[in-house]
Protein backbone atom coordinates (compact mmCIF):
# COMPACT_ATOMS: atom_id res chain seq x y z
CA UNK A 1 0.00 0.00 0.00
CA UNK A 2 1.27 3.42 -0.97
CA UNK A 3 0.69 5.98 1.75
CA UNK A 4 1.05 9.74 1.32
CA UNK A 5 0.31 12.16 4.11
CA UNK A 6 0.37 15.90 4.48
CA UNK A 7 0.58 17.72 7.75
CA UNK A 8 -2.47 19.92 7.39
CA UNK A 9 -5.30 17.64 8.41
CA UNK A 10 -5.52 14.87 11.00
CA UNK A 11 -3.68 11.78 9.85
CA UNK A 12 -6.52 9.43 10.77
CA UNK A 13 -8.79 11.24 8.31
CA UNK A 14 -6.16 10.95 5.58
CA UNK A 15 -5.75 7.24 6.31
CA UNK A 16 -9.51 6.77 6.00
CA UNK A 17 -9.55 8.61 2.67
CA UNK A 18 -6.70 6.52 1.31
CA UNK A 19 -8.24 3.23 2.38
CA UNK A 20 -11.55 4.30 0.84
CA UNK A 21 -9.70 5.10 -2.38
CA UNK A 22 -8.10 1.65 -2.32
CA UNK A 23 -11.53 0.05 -1.95
CA UNK A 24 -13.02 2.27 -4.66
CA UNK A 25 -10.27 1.44 -7.14
CA UNK A 26 -10.29 -2.25 -6.37
CA UNK A 27 -6.82 -2.37 -4.81
CA UNK A 28 -8.59 -3.66 -1.72
CA UNK A 29 -11.38 -6.09 -2.57
CA UNK A 30 -14.39 -7.19 -0.57
CA UNK A 31 -13.32 -9.88 1.86
CA UNK A 32 -9.59 -9.02 1.75
CA UNK A 33 -7.80 -9.42 5.06
CA UNK A 34 -5.96 -6.38 6.33
CA UNK A 35 -2.56 -6.56 8.03
CA UNK A 36 -2.53 -5.90 11.77
CA UNK A 37 -2.78 -2.34 13.11
CA UNK A 38 0.86 -2.45 14.11
CA UNK A 39 2.02 -3.67 10.69
CA UNK A 40 -0.03 -1.03 8.91
CA UNK A 41 1.23 1.69 11.25
CA UNK A 42 4.86 0.76 10.64
CA UNK A 43 4.31 0.52 6.88
CA UNK A 44 2.53 3.89 6.74
CA UNK A 45 4.98 5.36 9.26
CA UNK A 46 2.24 6.65 11.52
CA UNK A 47 1.34 6.32 15.16
CA UNK A 48 -0.44 3.01 15.90
CA UNK A 49 -3.12 4.88 17.89
CA UNK A 50 -3.83 6.95 14.82
CA UNK A 51 -4.07 3.89 12.58
CA UNK A 52 -6.36 2.21 15.13
CA UNK A 53 -8.60 5.27 15.19
CA UNK A 54 -8.89 5.31 11.40
CA UNK A 55 -9.68 1.60 11.17
CA UNK A 56 -12.26 1.80 13.95
CA UNK A 57 -13.99 4.65 12.19
CA UNK A 58 -14.05 2.70 8.93
CA UNK A 59 -15.51 -0.22 10.84
CA UNK A 60 -18.16 2.06 12.24
CA UNK A 61 -18.94 3.20 8.71
CA UNK A 62 -19.34 -0.39 7.63
CA UNK A 63 -16.41 -0.47 5.21
CA UNK A 64 -14.32 -2.75 7.37
CA UNK A 65 -15.31 -5.49 9.76
CA UNK A 66 -13.61 -7.35 12.60
CA UNK A 67 -13.86 -11.09 12.91
CA UNK A 68 -13.22 -11.98 16.53
CA UNK A 69 -9.62 -13.18 16.60
CA UNK A 70 -9.00 -13.42 12.86
CA UNK A 71 -8.44 -9.70 12.40
CA UNK A 72 -9.89 -7.02 10.19
CA UNK A 73 -11.35 -7.52 6.75
CA UNK A 74 -12.77 -5.37 4.01
CA UNK A 75 -16.55 -5.71 4.31
CA UNK A 76 -18.19 -8.24 2.04
CA UNK A 77 -20.58 -5.63 0.76
CA UNK A 78 -20.21 -5.13 -3.02
CA UNK A 79 -22.14 -1.85 -3.06
CA UNK A 80 -19.47 -0.28 -0.81
CA UNK A 81 -16.97 -0.12 -3.67
CA UNK A 82 -19.56 1.38 -6.00
CA UNK A 83 -20.67 3.96 -3.45
CA UNK A 84 -17.10 4.98 -2.79
CA UNK A 85 -16.36 5.27 -6.49
CA UNK A 86 -19.32 7.57 -6.86
CA UNK A 87 -18.27 9.63 -3.85
CA UNK A 88 -14.78 10.06 -5.24
CA UNK A 89 -16.10 10.91 -8.67
CA UNK A 90 -18.44 13.56 -7.26
CA UNK A 91 -15.52 15.05 -5.34
CA UNK A 92 -13.46 15.27 -8.55
CA UNK A 93 -16.38 16.83 -10.42
CA UNK A 94 -16.93 19.37 -7.66
CA UNK A 95 -13.30 20.48 -7.63
CA UNK A 96 -13.14 20.56 -11.45
CA UNK A 97 -16.27 22.64 -11.83
CA UNK A 98 -15.24 25.05 -9.07
CA UNK A 99 -11.92 25.62 -10.83
CA UNK A 100 -13.52 26.00 -14.23
CA UNK A 101 -15.97 28.55 -12.88
CA UNK A 102 -13.12 30.50 -11.31
CA UNK A 103 -11.53 30.61 -14.75
CA UNK A 104 -14.82 31.83 -16.22
CA UNK A 105 -15.81 28.82 -18.30
CA UNK A 106 -19.39 27.70 -18.83
CA UNK A 107 -20.85 24.20 -18.61
CA UNK A 108 -20.81 23.90 -22.40
CA UNK A 109 -17.10 24.83 -22.40
CA UNK A 110 -16.43 22.18 -19.74
CA UNK A 111 -18.13 19.44 -21.73
CA UNK A 112 -16.37 20.51 -24.93
CA UNK A 113 -12.96 20.47 -23.26
CA UNK A 114 -13.57 17.13 -21.60
CA UNK A 115 -14.56 15.50 -24.87
CA UNK A 116 -11.58 17.00 -26.67
CA UNK A 117 -9.11 15.88 -24.03
CA UNK A 118 -10.60 12.39 -23.98
CA UNK A 119 -10.26 12.10 -27.78
CA UNK A 120 -6.84 13.72 -28.09
CA UNK A 121 -5.39 11.36 -25.56
CA UNK A 122 -7.19 8.32 -26.96
CA UNK A 123 -8.55 7.36 -23.56
Amino acid at each position, binding site marked *: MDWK*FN*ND*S*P*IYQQIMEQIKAMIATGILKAGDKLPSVREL*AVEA*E*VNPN*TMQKALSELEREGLLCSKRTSGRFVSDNPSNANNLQEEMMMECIKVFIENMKKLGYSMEDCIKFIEKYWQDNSL
Partner: protein
Amino acid sequence: MENILECRNITKRYGSKVAINNLSVTVGSGKITGLLGPNGSGKTTLIKLIAGILNADEGEIFAGGNRIGIESKKIVSYLPERPYFTPGMKVSETIKFFSDFYNDFSSDAAESMLKSLDINPDARIRTLSKGNREKVQLVLVMSRKAKLYLLDEPMGGVDPAARDFILKTILKNYNENAGVIISTHLISDVEKVLDDVIFIKNGQMMLHESVDDIRSNKGKSVDSLFREVFAC
Protein backbone atom coordinates in the same frame (compact mmCIF):
# COMPACT_ATOMS: atom_id res chain seq x y z
CA MET B 1 -4.80 4.18 31.15
CA GLU B 2 -2.28 5.03 33.85
CA ASN B 3 0.07 7.97 33.71
CA ILE B 4 3.53 7.05 32.60
CA LEU B 5 4.89 10.42 33.67
CA GLU B 6 3.79 12.95 36.23
CA CYS B 7 5.67 16.19 36.88
CA ARG B 8 4.35 18.33 39.72
CA ASN B 9 5.50 21.91 40.03
CA ILE B 10 9.05 21.28 38.93
CA THR B 11 11.61 24.04 39.23
CA LYS B 12 15.25 23.69 38.28
CA ARG B 13 17.85 26.41 38.52
CA TYR B 14 21.40 26.65 37.27
CA GLY B 15 22.73 29.28 39.62
CA SER B 16 20.53 32.29 39.12
CA LYS B 17 19.09 31.05 35.81
CA VAL B 18 15.73 29.34 36.08
CA ALA B 19 15.75 26.55 33.51
CA ILE B 20 12.45 24.94 34.47
CA ASN B 21 9.89 27.20 36.06
CA ASN B 22 7.11 25.60 38.11
CA LEU B 23 6.25 23.13 35.38
CA SER B 24 3.55 20.50 35.74
CA VAL B 25 2.70 17.94 33.11
CA THR B 26 1.12 14.50 32.89
CA VAL B 27 1.63 11.99 30.11
CA GLY B 28 -0.55 8.90 29.72
CA SER B 29 0.85 5.52 28.78
CA GLY B 30 0.65 4.28 25.20
CA LYS B 31 1.35 7.75 23.87
CA ILE B 32 4.10 9.14 21.71
CA THR B 33 4.57 12.73 22.81
CA GLY B 34 6.66 15.41 21.15
CA LEU B 35 8.53 17.84 23.39
CA LEU B 36 9.01 20.93 21.26
CA GLY B 37 10.58 24.28 21.94
CA PRO B 38 13.34 26.59 20.86
CA ASN B 39 16.95 26.06 21.88
CA GLY B 40 17.39 26.88 25.53
CA SER B 41 13.72 26.41 26.37
CA GLY B 42 14.42 23.65 28.87
CA LYS B 43 13.72 20.49 26.84
CA THR B 44 16.99 18.74 27.64
CA THR B 45 16.89 19.85 31.26
CA LEU B 46 13.40 18.42 31.63
CA ILE B 47 14.43 15.16 30.04
CA LYS B 48 17.49 14.88 32.26
CA LEU B 49 15.34 15.52 35.32
CA ILE B 50 13.02 12.66 34.33
CA ALA B 51 16.01 10.44 33.55
CA GLY B 52 17.35 11.17 37.00
CA ILE B 53 20.59 12.71 35.82
CA LEU B 54 19.67 16.06 37.34
CA ASN B 55 17.77 16.78 40.52
CA ALA B 56 14.89 19.21 40.64
CA ASP B 57 15.17 22.06 43.12
CA GLU B 58 11.45 21.98 43.76
CA GLY B 59 8.57 19.69 42.91
CA GLU B 60 8.23 15.96 42.30
CA ILE B 61 8.50 13.69 39.30
CA PHE B 62 7.01 10.23 38.99
CA ALA B 63 7.90 7.89 36.13
CA GLY B 64 5.82 4.71 35.86
CA GLY B 65 4.47 5.50 39.30
CA ASN B 66 7.95 5.65 40.86
CA ARG B 67 9.57 8.73 42.28
CA ILE B 68 12.76 9.45 40.32
CA GLY B 69 15.46 7.21 41.68
CA ILE B 70 16.74 3.66 41.37
CA GLU B 71 13.31 2.18 40.66
CA SER B 72 12.42 4.73 38.01
CA LYS B 73 15.77 4.32 36.25
CA LYS B 74 15.02 0.63 35.82
CA ILE B 75 12.02 1.46 33.68
CA VAL B 76 13.19 4.63 31.92
CA SER B 77 15.31 4.30 28.79
CA TYR B 78 17.14 7.52 27.98
CA LEU B 79 18.72 8.47 24.67
CA PRO B 80 20.91 11.52 25.19
CA GLU B 81 21.51 14.19 22.62
CA ARG B 82 25.18 13.30 22.44
CA PRO B 83 26.37 9.71 22.38
CA TYR B 84 28.22 8.74 25.49
CA PHE B 85 30.25 5.73 24.49
CA THR B 86 34.02 6.00 24.58
CA PRO B 87 35.21 6.08 20.97
CA GLY B 88 37.41 3.03 21.39
CA MET B 89 34.53 0.77 22.41
CA LYS B 90 33.39 -1.85 19.96
CA VAL B 91 29.71 -2.05 19.09
CA SER B 92 29.59 -5.54 20.61
CA GLU B 93 31.02 -4.10 23.82
CA THR B 94 28.28 -1.50 23.99
CA ILE B 95 25.75 -4.33 23.73
CA LYS B 96 27.46 -6.15 26.59
CA PHE B 97 27.51 -2.90 28.58
CA PHE B 98 23.76 -2.46 28.23
CA SER B 99 23.17 -6.10 28.94
CA ASP B 100 25.14 -5.83 32.20
CA PHE B 101 23.38 -2.68 33.26
CA TYR B 102 19.76 -3.37 32.41
CA ASN B 103 17.59 -6.38 33.19
CA ASP B 104 15.11 -5.46 30.52
CA PHE B 105 17.68 -5.34 27.71
CA SER B 106 17.49 -7.80 24.85
CA SER B 107 20.88 -8.48 23.23
CA ASP B 108 19.15 -10.52 20.55
CA ALA B 109 16.90 -7.64 19.57
CA ALA B 110 19.86 -5.25 19.44
CA GLU B 111 22.03 -7.62 17.47
CA SER B 112 19.36 -8.38 14.93
CA MET B 113 18.59 -4.68 14.40
CA LEU B 114 22.27 -3.87 13.94
CA LYS B 115 22.62 -6.76 11.53
CA SER B 116 19.78 -5.48 9.39
CA LEU B 117 21.56 -2.11 9.40
CA ASP B 118 24.76 -3.71 8.19
CA ILE B 119 26.70 -2.42 11.18
CA ASN B 120 29.63 -4.59 12.06
CA PRO B 121 29.56 -5.55 15.75
CA ASP B 122 33.33 -5.55 15.81
CA ALA B 123 33.58 -1.98 14.58
CA ARG B 124 34.78 0.59 17.07
CA ILE B 125 32.47 3.53 17.72
CA ARG B 126 35.01 6.05 16.45
CA THR B 127 35.13 4.37 13.03
CA LEU B 128 31.39 4.72 12.51
CA SER B 129 29.81 7.59 10.64
CA LYS B 130 27.69 10.02 12.61
CA GLY B 131 24.53 8.45 11.22
CA ASN B 132 25.61 4.98 12.24
CA ARG B 133 26.60 6.12 15.70
CA GLU B 134 23.12 7.60 16.15
CA LYS B 135 21.58 4.36 14.94
CA VAL B 136 23.65 2.24 17.33
CA GLN B 137 22.70 4.46 20.25
CA LEU B 138 19.02 4.32 19.30
CA VAL B 139 19.05 0.56 18.78
CA LEU B 140 20.51 0.03 22.24
CA VAL B 141 17.97 2.33 23.90
CA MET B 142 15.04 0.77 22.04
CA SER B 143 16.19 -2.79 22.79
CA ARG B 144 15.19 -2.29 26.39
CA LYS B 145 11.65 -3.18 27.38
CA ALA B 146 11.18 0.07 29.28
CA LYS B 147 8.03 1.86 30.37
CA LEU B 148 9.20 5.29 29.35
CA TYR B 149 11.56 6.13 26.51
CA LEU B 150 13.13 9.57 26.56
CA LEU B 151 14.65 10.43 23.20
CA ASP B 152 16.55 13.71 23.09
CA GLU B 153 16.98 14.75 19.46
CA PRO B 154 17.13 11.18 18.14
CA MET B 155 17.46 12.34 14.55
CA GLY B 156 19.75 15.32 14.79
CA GLY B 157 22.14 15.74 11.90
CA VAL B 158 21.30 12.56 10.00
CA ASP B 159 20.08 12.04 6.46
CA PRO B 160 16.39 11.55 5.56
CA ALA B 161 16.72 7.79 5.05
CA ALA B 162 18.32 7.39 8.47
CA ARG B 163 15.54 9.52 9.96
CA ASP B 164 12.96 7.21 8.39
CA PHE B 165 14.71 4.22 9.91
CA ILE B 166 14.72 5.85 13.32
CA LEU B 167 11.00 6.65 13.12
CA LYS B 168 10.20 3.13 11.93
CA THR B 169 12.17 1.69 14.84
CA ILE B 170 10.26 3.85 17.29
CA LEU B 171 6.96 2.72 15.76
CA LYS B 172 7.88 -0.96 15.65
CA ASN B 173 8.70 -0.76 19.31
CA TYR B 174 5.43 0.86 20.20
CA ASN B 175 3.67 -0.70 23.15
CA GLU B 176 0.48 0.57 24.75
CA ASN B 177 1.89 0.07 28.24
CA ALA B 178 4.85 2.31 27.60
CA GLY B 179 5.30 5.94 26.66
CA VAL B 180 7.70 7.71 24.36
CA ILE B 181 8.79 11.32 24.68
CA ILE B 182 10.69 12.72 21.71
CA SER B 183 12.40 16.05 21.89
CA THR B 184 13.17 17.35 18.43
CA HIS B 185 13.50 20.29 16.08
CA LEU B 186 12.47 18.21 13.07
CA ILE B 187 8.80 18.77 13.69
CA SER B 188 7.40 18.23 10.21
CA ASP B 189 9.22 14.90 9.95
CA VAL B 190 7.93 13.65 13.23
CA GLU B 191 4.39 15.08 13.43
CA LYS B 192 2.62 12.15 11.86
CA VAL B 193 4.05 9.82 14.45
CA LEU B 194 3.06 11.88 17.49
CA ASP B 195 -0.13 11.55 19.52
CA ASP B 196 0.41 14.73 21.50
CA VAL B 197 2.78 17.65 21.61
CA ILE B 198 4.07 19.79 24.43
CA PHE B 199 5.34 23.28 23.62
CA ILE B 200 7.89 24.55 26.11
CA LYS B 201 9.33 28.07 26.38
CA ASN B 202 11.57 29.57 29.04
CA GLY B 203 11.10 26.50 31.17
CA GLN B 204 7.31 26.71 31.14
CA MET B 205 4.75 24.62 29.38
CA MET B 206 2.80 26.65 26.86
CA LEU B 207 0.64 23.99 25.30
CA HIS B 208 -0.15 20.30 25.66
CA GLU B 209 -2.52 19.09 22.97
CA SER B 210 -3.13 16.26 20.58
CA VAL B 211 -1.83 16.66 17.07
CA ASP B 212 -5.28 15.86 15.71
CA ASP B 213 -6.88 18.66 17.73
CA ILE B 214 -4.28 21.15 16.55
CA ARG B 215 -4.81 20.18 12.95
CA SER B 216 -8.62 20.15 13.06
CA ASN B 217 -9.22 23.05 15.44
CA LYS B 218 -6.41 25.34 14.39
CA GLY B 219 -6.41 24.16 10.80
CA LYS B 220 -2.67 23.95 10.55
CA SER B 221 0.20 21.56 11.02
CA VAL B 222 2.12 21.46 14.29
CA ASP B 223 5.13 22.76 12.40
CA SER B 224 3.16 25.83 11.22
CA LEU B 225 1.74 26.42 14.69
CA PHE B 226 5.21 26.19 16.18
CA ARG B 227 6.55 28.78 13.77
CA GLU B 228 3.72 31.11 14.72
CA VAL B 229 3.99 30.62 18.45
CA PHE B 230 7.76 30.87 18.54
CA ALA B 231 8.30 33.45 15.80
CA CYS B 232 11.48 35.42 16.38
